[in-house]
């Protein structure tokens, strides 16, 4: 398994290389520079700034020096916040975003899988229609609508939970995690229902019934492994989606995570910050996709790990 993981990671290196290169040139080919916003800057100050960040070098030189630093784990200084390095900022933002995504994923899995199972036991009855209609509504409800609604209900009207921040007040992590998780909960519920209905129709479930097993045992011991296969395959892409979705949630709840940094960096044309975040997120997503693949194979004895 480790060998497989390493092999897949090794395969991912050229992909990441292309991503980094493409992002680098994309960002640098954009009209406007990082210091455009400060229009009042005199020409020589601007030149000085550009010289300090080597922005006056030819592009290929900038690229080479950037790649050189990157290999050593240095993402370079932030153009925007002159006294902070990108590595530093990522290190403060990443754990927060990661934690948010993890909680959201947990919520999505718990709600989604249980709703899907409930719906799949008696398909085409109220027990199916009600959770699935809620799921459809959940998919249709964008997080930038969900977030403020939750804030309005639980934060302002009922005054149960804090409405912003991350780790400043007890319970302030609940609303952001729910906001981010619900859309995926709905999607996972649909996937679970589909997978479970298919598995519950299989002959080996009839065998399990004929053995005298009670329904919960049948579901837990015989159906779940096959039925959750589509959910497992979705975990990788879901994680990518959660990271991207954190941009909105972090903005709504004023959470100082990576997503918020990224959006700000994009507006500020903070090249090194954009590059750093993109590289980091790409790597994370690649890793999670590989983990998702491994999990799928590991849980299905008919598949073997091969590239």
């Amino acid at each position, binding site marked *: 398994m480790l060998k497989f993981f390493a092999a897949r990671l090794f395969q991912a290196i050229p992909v990441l290389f292309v991503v980094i290169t493409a992002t680098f040139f994309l960002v640098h080919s954009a009209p406007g520079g990082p210091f455009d916003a400060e229009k009042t800057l005199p020409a020589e100050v601007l030149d000085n700034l550009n010289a300090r960040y080597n922005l006056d070098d030819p592009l290929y030189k900038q690229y080479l020096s950037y790649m050189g630093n990157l290999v050593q784990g240095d993402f370079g200084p932030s153009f925007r916040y002159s006294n902070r390095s990108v590595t530093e900022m990522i290190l403060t933002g990443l754990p927060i975003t990661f934690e948010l995504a993890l909680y959201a994923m947990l919520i999505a899995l718990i709600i989604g899988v249980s709703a899907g199972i409930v719906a799949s036991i008696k398909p085409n009855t109220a027990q199916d229609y009600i959770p699935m209609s809620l799921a459809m509504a959940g998919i249709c409800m964008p997080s930038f609508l969900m977030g403020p609604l939750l804030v309005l209900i639980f934060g302002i009207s009922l005054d149960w939970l804090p409405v912003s921040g991350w780790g400043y007040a007890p319970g302030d992590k609940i609303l952001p995690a729910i906001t981010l998780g619900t859309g995926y909960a709905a999607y996972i519920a649909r996937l679970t229902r589909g997978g479970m209905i298919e598995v519950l129709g*299989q*002959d*080996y479930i*009839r*065998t*399990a*019934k*004929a*053995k*005298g*097993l*009670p329904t919960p*045992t049948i579901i837990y*011991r*015989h159906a779940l*492994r*096959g039925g959750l296969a589509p959910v497992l395959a979705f975990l990788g892409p879901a994680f990518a989606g959660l990271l991207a979705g954190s941009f909105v949630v972090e903005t709504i709840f004023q959470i100082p995570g990576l997503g918020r940094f990224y959006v700000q960096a994009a507006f500020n044309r903070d090249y090194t910050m954009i590059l750093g975040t993109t590289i980091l997120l790409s790597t994370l997503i690649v890793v999670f996709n590989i983990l998702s693949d491994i999990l799928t194979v590991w*849980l*299905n*004895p*008919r598949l073997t790990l091969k590239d």
Partner: protein
Amino acid sequence: MSLLDVSALNIDFNTREGVINAVNSVSFTVDRGETLGIVGESGSGKTVCCNALMRLLPTPPAAIKGRAVFDGVDLLTSSESRLRSIRGRRIGMIFQDPMTALNPFMRIGQQIMEPLQLHYKTPKELARKKTLAILQEVGIDKPEQRLDCYAHELSGGMRQRVMIAMALITEPDLLIADEPTTALDVTTQAQILALLNELQQRRNIAMIFISHDLHVIKKIATRVLVLQKGCMVEQGRCAQVFAAPQHDYTKSLLDAIPKGKKPTRYRHEQPLAPNFLSITNASISFPAKPTPNLAVKDVSLSIARGEILGLVGESGCGKTSLAQSLVRLVDLEQGEIKLKNKSLTSLNEKQLRLARKDMQMIFQDPFASLNPRMSIFEIIAEPLKLHGLATTKRSLNEKVLALMCEVGLEANWAHQYPHQFSGGQRQRVAIARAIAVEPQLIIADEPVSALDVTIQAQILKLLLDLCWQYSISMIFISHDLAVVRYVADRIAVMQKGQIVELGNTEALLTNPQHSYTKTLLAARLS
């Protein structure tokens, strides 16, 4: 008082098209030490009946009435928990296809000991011991190694042995076996039947054995129950029913079994023009690791115009690969195929498409070989249009209707879709499609093995008629020696990719030379 007493069992299905009666007032009893065979064609309600006894049918749509008293408990009305204490503990079940009936995600050891742990709370070590013992009893060698296998790692026969072990581990009083040998090869079938017979005798248990195959029932049952469209038409001691059937339906079932030689009116008097189709040194292999899997090894054959060659062998022997290579669905690795002395193997894509007019194929599963989204008319019209055999709309209409008439389909069915037909009717559509282009060669791959016996007889007659009338050569693939004997002029026996014996039908069957042919003939139940 019998162990199981079923009376006036009635099962309806509520569907969108209204209520369909699947089982109509069926009554029977089973006692310890005897085997009740339930026989009937597809849709006769035999499986539904037994699933209803174990309450494995979802209700709704099913509505079950009647009584089924097992050792004092009415299975149909008892509480769910009472029923669960009977299922798997006192009544065991075996299903048709062990591949799908075993959980692919669970090791077989775990699956076998599950009923023990559930019903008797047997500790793990003891359960393991008992599992090893029963695996030995059902004839699995090296049981310690098999415990940790998954279903897909075993052969078909082994899987069915595992199913049997799983059903018997709690030492039930009644065993229900639903077509347990249908998915198996003939030689394996013979072994499994012998095993079931022996186990039933030794443990003195009651058994209900469901099958569509009269030979199998005759071999294993003490008493037999004949079902037709959900109704019980005959019940009695096995030997008696087979020797002197009372009901017309039972008679027609027995008559439909192909018996004896090829009818003389289909036999050619004069020697036929030889080498119509010739295969020389054909080999086929499929890519596999670590070594390519050689499916057909160095096979040579030739067929005369109008001749029917039977190709027999067990699953995986390469007969289907060989057949598919004849119509170039798979490519030969080596060797050559010549039709009318013209090489088929060297044709390019375009020439091949034209050449296909002369050779057609009929597939085993008429549910899979018809496009579900095309009407019967479109299916039969497609080859006609493609090969320019009908140029105007009018002539196309006429030709399609004529073909439908020829294979025994009614004209007003033309705009219906395949799912609306029964297996036999679908196979007629497939035959109409094949003969539409007036081919000279037909490859028929198990064309009747998915069909009921009465339908099987009709389709065989249709094929014989058509081949005779248009002097079509046919390669008829089957695992069923009785069918092949009825149809073929010559028989080729295949084993592990090679033809081990080839000869005139009667000569080969009465005086087999090769040991494998002898094994096959010995496994024959009739």
